[in-house]
């Protein structure tokens, strides 16, 4: 545990500048929201920057992971010359991104809350749906961001593996790895087998005041995506332990 805690601390230190820049960007988005409130008057449009900021957090973990890997690649022997399994080295980077995204999103939510209170009259009609949807969006943004972060790890490890064997064509392999899995996944998701294994544990997200149809999903789909991501993570760890060279 001491080894992993030290890795996490190191990963935080490697990426803390990006983290603090992110917090400043959050602050700027809040200021933009306040500014829009003064020029656009009392409309919900003023909250667009905050919504955009929250949605862009889907790219938060991948960005943190990518920057961390960019720094490691400059001294790859340091990172890889370590008796810990690659899964331990990699999970530290993901957890570091997770801690940062949670803090960043919490900051945005708290600030949004502070901005919403004086404009409560704008939300009064659909207040219940607003805060429930905000609650649902929070973990989903984190899940999506983490999943993309794991894919970034995989693409990076794949690139490191193939660059010593096929050189400049490595990018083609990486581009293939970006295109083929979503395509294959979309194909599989259109099959009866997919429906059979995922369509259980019905979950409905219903927001009557938003004038949209209820959103239907399944616990099986969450589990399916979770298993895929765990699989990609351990494949990445295997590539790092057995194929990546300095």
């Amino acid at each position: 545990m001491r080894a992993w805690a030290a890795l996490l601390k190191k990963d935080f230190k490697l990426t803390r500048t990006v983290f603090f820049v992110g917090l400043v960007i959050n602050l700027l988005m809040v200021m933009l929201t306040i500014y829009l409130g003064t020029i656009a008057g009392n409309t919900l449009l003023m909250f667009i920057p905050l919504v955009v900021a929250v949605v862009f957090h889907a790219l938060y973990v991948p960005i943190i992971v990518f920057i961390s890997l960019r720094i490691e690649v400059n001294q790859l022997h340091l990172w890889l010359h370590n008796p810990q399994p690659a899964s331990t080295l990699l999970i530290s980077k993901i957890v570091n991104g997770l801690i940062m995204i949670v803090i960043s999103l919490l900051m945005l939510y708290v600030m949004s809350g502070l901005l919403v209170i004086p404009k409560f009259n704008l939300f009064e009609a659909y207040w219940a749906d607003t805060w429930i949807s905000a609650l649902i969006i929070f973990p989903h943004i984190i899940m999506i961001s983490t999943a993309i972060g794991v894919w970034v790890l995989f693409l990076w490890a794949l690139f490191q593996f193939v660059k010593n064997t096929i050189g400049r064509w490595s990018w083609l392999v990486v581009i293939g790895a970006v295109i083929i899995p979503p395509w294959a996944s979309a194909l599989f998701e259109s099959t009866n087998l997919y429906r059979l294994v995922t369509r259980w544990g019905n979950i409905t997200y219903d927001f009557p005041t938003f004038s949209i149809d209820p959103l239907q999903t399944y616990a099986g789909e969450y589990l399916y995506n979770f298993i895929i991501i765990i699989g990609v993570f351990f494949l990445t760890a295997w590539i790092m332990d057995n194929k990546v060279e300095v």
Partner: protein
Amino acid sequence: MIQMTNVSKKYMKQSALKDISLSLPIGKIIGIVGENGSGKSTLLRLISGLSLPTSGSVTVNGERANRRISKVVSYLSEVGSFYHIYTVKEAMDFQASQFTDFNMAKADEIMKFMQLEPDMKIKNLSKGNRGRLKIMLTLAREVPYLLMDEPFSGLDPMVRESIVRGMISYVDLESQTLIMTCHETTEIESLLDSFIAIKEGSLLRMADVEELHELEGLSITGWMKKNYV
């Protein structure tokens, strides 16, 4: 025991090492010599498990060398420094957290010998001091195999000799083997028990230094001039 059996290494189409077979026992100081680009660093990386052979096998204490062989191998790379986010003391703490064999008391002693201060920030260290830091972090591990790739590059020539001698005093030859590459063979020759000569990726010779002196009346540098030029 480090065992390399018919090891070849290619980077794409370029051959770095060709059919190398050798055994390296515990309790020796071994120098790897050869021209630039002859494959010295590749040989060390293969033993450290940070590179993998294209063919043949590398084992350390009977275990196939991959990156996790670092549990019994301490490796100093020629390139780069340590994480710039740390001070000297933080770098020592980090190493101690990752390697249970990292001897903090020994690290402290080497740090003082190397005239490093614990509060020095690595990003502010001179090239020479970064080299000293790398040596300290590598030597403070109590592992059977210490691998050092050009450990003296960047060190001031005036202090190099004392650092070389001091460094060797921190190697326990009862339980450790030090394998290093070095351009300036004359500087380390008196310390070496054996040498491995590589030429264009092939093993030219592996011999005891004493044997070379006694049988052929040559120093390593003299022998290299004869066989490389």
